[in-house]
């Protein structure tokens, strides 16, 4: 049974809220002494819009800023938080911590925190799909940022995917910041799609803070890839509303720019859109927020209660 467009949008809004709430909680946990996390606060619509356009058979690769992708794909905040805290009930048994969380049960198959690492691995995942591994017609989506687009491997991956006609969706979340450097210090303004087009790949550049626009573009791209097994490229123009990681105070960020993007917060935009259309009333919103808050609190308690790994796990599982 298909959900109505309104139901879908409400569900997506709820996922945005859950991601935001989880990531704010991770920042708070870090303030209390848990490891640093790289949050994607402000970029949630990219994750939800694209991942909602994928199917269960598809595969996802992500990077150090992965919480939104994982939650959008259905990750349980309990296991996510346990992983960030290095506990056995985390998705990787505590071996990953926050930076390289993979969850194969969700199809999030490989996560590299080496900027561009995910781009090096993605063509191989798509090649395996093309050569009959996994479900027929499945595709791969790889999430990376504008920083990774400055790595040489970006071009190698695009070139190979185009030449070998791999079923691969490149998703560049252009969040304007490359760790502590603004991207306009490192690249020409319109470089990213131009580079991809130079490799013969069809691109779209989309307002990444507009969930509906992202979802529509991703749906088009996914359908096109399934139809002709050629890669597609989405540039999602968005903004990292928090610092690079942890308690980074963003003192280096231009206040006017930050303010501009805060006014374009994807969550508030969708909330406004739903409210204006009469699809979200204050009571529903409050109930949603309350439910999410209690899920997040439950996740924190679960993660803190989860045991540390046994020291024997120090050298396992290095080898198969």
């Amino acid at each position, binding site marked *: 049974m298909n959900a109505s467009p309104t139901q879908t949008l409400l569900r997506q809004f709820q996922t945005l809220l859950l991601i935001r709430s989880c990531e704010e909680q991770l920042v708070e946990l870090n303030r209390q002494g848990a490891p640093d996390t790289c949050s994607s606060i402000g970029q949630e619509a990219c994750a939800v819009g694209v991942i909602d356009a994928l199917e269960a058979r598809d*595969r996802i*690769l992500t990077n150090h800023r992965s919480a939104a992708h994982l939650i959008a794909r259905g990750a349980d905040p309990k296991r996510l938080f346990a992983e960030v805290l290095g506990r056995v009930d*985390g*998705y*990787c*048994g*505590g*071996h*990953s911590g926050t930076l*390289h*969380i*993979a*969850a*194969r049960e969700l199809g999030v*198959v*490989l*996560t*590299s925190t*080496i900027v*561009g*690492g995910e*781009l*090096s*691995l*993605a*063509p*191989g*995942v*798509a*090649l*395996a*799909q093309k*050569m009959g*591994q*996994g479900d027929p017609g499945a595709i791969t989506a790889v999430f990376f940022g504008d920083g990774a687009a400055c790595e*040489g*491997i970006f071009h*190698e*991956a695009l*070139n*190979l995917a185009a*030449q*070998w006609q791999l079923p691969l969706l490149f998703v560049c979340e252009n969040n304007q910041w490359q760790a502590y450097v603004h991207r306009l210090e490192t690249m020409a303004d319109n470089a990213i799609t131009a580079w991809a087009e130079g490799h013969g790949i069809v691109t779209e550049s989309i307002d990444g803070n507009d969930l509906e626009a992202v979802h529509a573009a991703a749906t088009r791209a996914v359908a096109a890839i399934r139809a002709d097994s050629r890669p597609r490229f989405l540039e999602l123009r968005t903004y990292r509303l928090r610092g690079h990681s942890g308690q980074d105070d963003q003192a280096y960020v231009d206040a006017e720019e930050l303010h501009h993007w805060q006014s374009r917060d994807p969550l508030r935009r969708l909330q406004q859109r739903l409210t204006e259309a009469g699809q979200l009333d204050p009571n529903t919103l409050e109930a949603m927020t309350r439910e999410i808050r209690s899920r997040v609190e439950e996740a924190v308690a679960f993660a803190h209660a989860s045991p540390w790994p046994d020291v024997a796990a120090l050298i*396992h*599982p*290095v*080898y*198969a």
Partner: protein
Amino acid sequence: MTRMTTEQALTQALHEEMRRDARVLLLGEGAATKRPGLAREFGPARVRNTPLAEAIIAGTAVGAAASGLRPVIDLLFAPFLTYAMDALINSAGKLRYLSGGQCEFPLVALAMTGSGWCVGGQHNHNLEAMFVHAPGLQVLMPSTPADSKGLLKAAIRERNPVLFFIDLGLLHQEGEVADDPEEIVPIGVAALPRQGTDVTLVGYAKTVPVCLQAAAELEPHGVSAEVIDLRSLKPLDTACVLDSVARTGRLIVVHEASGLCGIAAELGALAASRAFGALRAPVVRITGPDAPAASSWALEQAAVPQAQAVVDAALGLMAEPLRRTPVVEDAWRAQA
């Protein structure tokens, strides 16, 4: 048994394993062009020429290996591996562990190295120890056509990523090779091509024939040398080396790679910590220098341990077990 070169033995191993397992594929710069027999038999989907882009060749192999395929990548010359190190070391070597065992990476990376072709330091660099330092990887470097075939087959069947180094200087040397496609050489087991009682000579790749020649030359001096061919650098067959040293009391390790933090240093430390009571003389390393591989034939050969240096070192250990003079360990100094 059939007589063939190492190059032919490697190609035969690829043929047999690709026939045996449809998940095996070969990627590389000219992989299809250089091995037309494989390209003909298995087609362009499984034998692929790639761009000259080592990082994405390796990355693609790692991604494919995690997704059900068993790629073999030919990266040509070992120094090109430095472009591929992120995928091999950070991804193939670590992501199994970091993901809590959610994936495995059955892949083989082939690379040629070593003196003999005067190709200089950017095509010849024995950097195998760098990969020994990388967790999650296995490192092989055989010396004979038979072991090249048997170990490559084992590597392709292995569940872990394998770095497979091919000694350029041995590529066209012939030897007897098993015909049975099920005959494999197990990873992690050293070979003992010559038994002896007075001194243990350990080598791998081209220093194995060097050690064998030295052992033959030591015989008229009344010195009985045992020769170990490591074949596998990681996992390292420490039991074989310790067993031998327990019997001979003397250890000389010979390799073309530079000595600092290398395989010989590791075996020296092993002997010192686990066979100290058996040692009757200091451990000697004879290795290449801390310098890029030279292109000039004279310089290239000077860098490589030769049999005479091994003979001299062994005779020195026999004559003066408690040496007061330092042992010359850089091959070129010993040979100067």
